[in-house]
């Protein structure tokens, strides 16, 4: 076999040292599980961000299938000081996908570690490896006729719970704050040592998945949105399938309605009358997922005009805002709470739709499925809106107050329009906060549009930061800039932790702006 010419190396690593390390890793995982040729690596370099692929190109990819192999690999890399970028399923699309945060890092792809290690139907818990997908977990529960649900994000068929939790992703059932509903992690540290958090550190404990805290400082949080270790197992809580599930949609006609929507729904959310995250999706989030083609309404340069958005609403029966939530409980409690929902919709001028009254739009169906933890790929139709494979999420957090939402929406829409992009956004109402999620969609095959998308994200980030709005999650291309918005003291502490846990700076240096 011809040895490929090594054209890409991690910074500061010689070709001979790199080859020696790869040879050691091949001995650990086997030849077929080390990829270093261009076609084999290309899937790890498939990004949607507005930066060149080369900026995030890996030097190799390794696919271990056990924690012991991960430990052995880390010992090699720690000794040779070669940086590694761990991924679970690598489907963090719009946030960086599977590509390393910095060029030349070796991708440590944990997709082969895809075992569902335990599901306890009595305690409603699960223990999973990084490669387990939500679809796999869903199928497992169905095949074993276990009346348990979980919360999943939009790309759930192909994404997995461990990676989503580690990135502090969210979902749409009452268990939608995924880190909150995790319980116990197994983490391989840079030197190959294995840590089990919480009760997992205690020999013979059977409470790892039921009591998150253990004794002393709670460490789980430092392994999320960080690079202090490689999470190889995660405990998660599952939700008993409720006897009654009643999803609904309330549509509102005007952009300004967002203020009264949030004011009306926040008390219901805090009191847990509505126990899941309420999604308030704008017209242009709904449109592509309802098979509306942008080119039919606006095919010129620049952002789609408001007049065209109005026509889309009229033609396709979409609201300016489309509120999705659900009731979970017994039929009796749901009946009682339904009266509250009807009253809120009537008082705020919304049009209420249920599963039986909805006209069967695709967007509604995928939303209703997500709210019962049924994986699907319905939201991917967003990528047809502009076409060209460019997508980057801008996700600032705000208080769950109406005045905040209208202010954020106006700020975002103005900045997007300045660069020729559409406002494709939604608000996700948490218990007291809101994630304002905007998909900056652009044509990545158009060099100028890609440059504009980068500049647009940059302006969004810094304009929102000046107003005190930080993002809850960010793509890898902007990790450093986002981290900088949170101030120097936090970053200094993060660096000190990095120094203590990974002094050779080999685990994903640069991830979330953390590096030595």
């Amino acid at each position, binding site marked *: 076999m011809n040895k490929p*010419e090594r054209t890409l190396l991690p910074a500061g690593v010689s070709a001979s040292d790199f080859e020696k390390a790869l040879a050691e890793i091949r001995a650990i995982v086997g030849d077929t599980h080390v990829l270093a040729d*261009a076609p084999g690596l290309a899937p*790890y370099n*498939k990004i949607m961000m507005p930066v060149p692929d080369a900026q995030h190109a890996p030097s190799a990819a390794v696919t271990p299938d056990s924690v012991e192999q991960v430990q052995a690999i880390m010992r090699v890399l720690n000794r040779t000081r070669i940086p590694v970028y761990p991924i679970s399923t690598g489907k963090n699309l719009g946030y960086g996908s599977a590509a390393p945060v910095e060029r030349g890092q070796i991708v440590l792809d944990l997709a082969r570690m895809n075992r569902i290690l335990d599901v306890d139907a009595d305690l409603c818990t699960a223990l999973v490896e990084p490669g387990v997908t939500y679809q796999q977990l869903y199928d497992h529960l169905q095949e074993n006729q276990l009346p348990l649900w979980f919360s999943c994000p939009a790309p759930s068929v192909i994404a997995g719970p461990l990676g989503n939790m580690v990135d502090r992703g969210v979902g749409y059932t009452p268990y939608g704050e995924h880190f909150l509903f995790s319980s116990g992690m197994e983490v391989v540290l840079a030197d190959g040592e294995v840590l089990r958090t919480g009760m997992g550190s205690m020999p013979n404990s059977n409470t790892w998945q039921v009591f998150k805290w253990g004794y002393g400082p709670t460490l789980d949080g430092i392994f999320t949105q960080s690079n202090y270790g490689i999470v190889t197992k995660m405990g998660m809580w599952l939700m008993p399938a409720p006897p009654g599930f009643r999803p609904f949609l309330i549509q509102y006609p005007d952009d300004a309605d967002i203020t009264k929507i949030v004011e009306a729904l926040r008390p219901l959310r805090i009191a847990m009358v509505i126990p899941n995250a309420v999604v308030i999706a704008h017209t242009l989030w709904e449109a592509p997922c309802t098979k509306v083609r942008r*080119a*039919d309404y606006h095919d010129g340069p620049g952002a789609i005009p408001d007049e065209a958005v109005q026509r889309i609403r009229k033609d396709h029966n979409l609201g300016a805002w489309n509120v999705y939530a659900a009731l979970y409980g017994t039929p009796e409690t749901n009946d009682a709470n339904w009266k509250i929902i009807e009253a809120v919709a009537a008082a705020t001028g919304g049009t209420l739709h249920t599963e039986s009254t909805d006209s069967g739009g695709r967007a509604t169906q995928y939303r209703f499925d997500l709210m019962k933890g049924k994986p699907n790929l319905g939201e991917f*139709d967003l*990528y047809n809106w502009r076409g060209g494979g460019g997508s980057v999420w801008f996700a600032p957090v705000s208080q769950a107050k109406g005045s905040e939402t209208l202010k954020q929406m106006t700020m975002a829409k103005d900045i997007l329009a300045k660069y020729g992009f559409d406002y494709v956004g939604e608000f996700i109402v948490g218990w007291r906060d809101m994630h304002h999620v905007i998909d900056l969609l652009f*044509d990545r095959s158009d060099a100028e549009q890609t440059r504009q998308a980068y500049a647009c994200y940059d302006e969004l980030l810094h304009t929102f930061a000046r107003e005190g709005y930080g993002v809850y999650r960010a793509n890898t291309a902007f990790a450093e800039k986002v981290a900088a918005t949170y101030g120097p003291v936090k970053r200094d502490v993060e660096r000190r932790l990095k120094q203590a846990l990974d002094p050779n700076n080999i685990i994903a240096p640069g991830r979330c702006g953390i590096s030595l």
Partner: protein
Amino acid sequence: MNRREFIRRTGGGAILAMPLASVAPAALAALHARSDAEAAPLVLVAPADLPTATALAQRLAAALRAAGLPATLQHPDGNALRRHDGLSALFAQPAGTRLLGIMDDAAAVIVQAVAGSRGARMLAHGEHRGAAGTIRHCCSATTHDAAIRWREAAHGPQPHLERFYLAALGVGLPAGGPPTAAAAGVPPGSLASFLLQL
């Protein structure tokens, strides 16, 4: 094929200026031996409910046939490419099968993501945007760093796309060009294409 060799075979930096006809097949090919290329099955996938994609797939299929690379055409329902079972069916092919997909952007993102999870090798991909009577193509082969871009009239496309994917498969366009001169172009909107090996 490394970058230096690619540049040598294409006559220096001429690739960015096209014409694409100057690109030697070996320069883009990730599969180097023609015998390998001929042996592995080749499947062309275009959603049945996307006429522009099926038309483009027919155009490519004709060129592949003429070049001695017969392809099996598959036209799944577009919704199947957004369902777990539909995707599983698409990937139920023998190892080594080349999959040439032409579909909407959303389906292309999904299929390529799933293929990557299954260990597929990515050989090439492209974007095809139609607007105001012209089609803008942007294609990339894994073995070459720079994207190849060109524009053509929607009503009279040149066989550049055929040439690109044939080159990515390691073969050239037969003498006389493709058997069909011009097929339907891309209307306002966009399509994505990709070539991967399972």
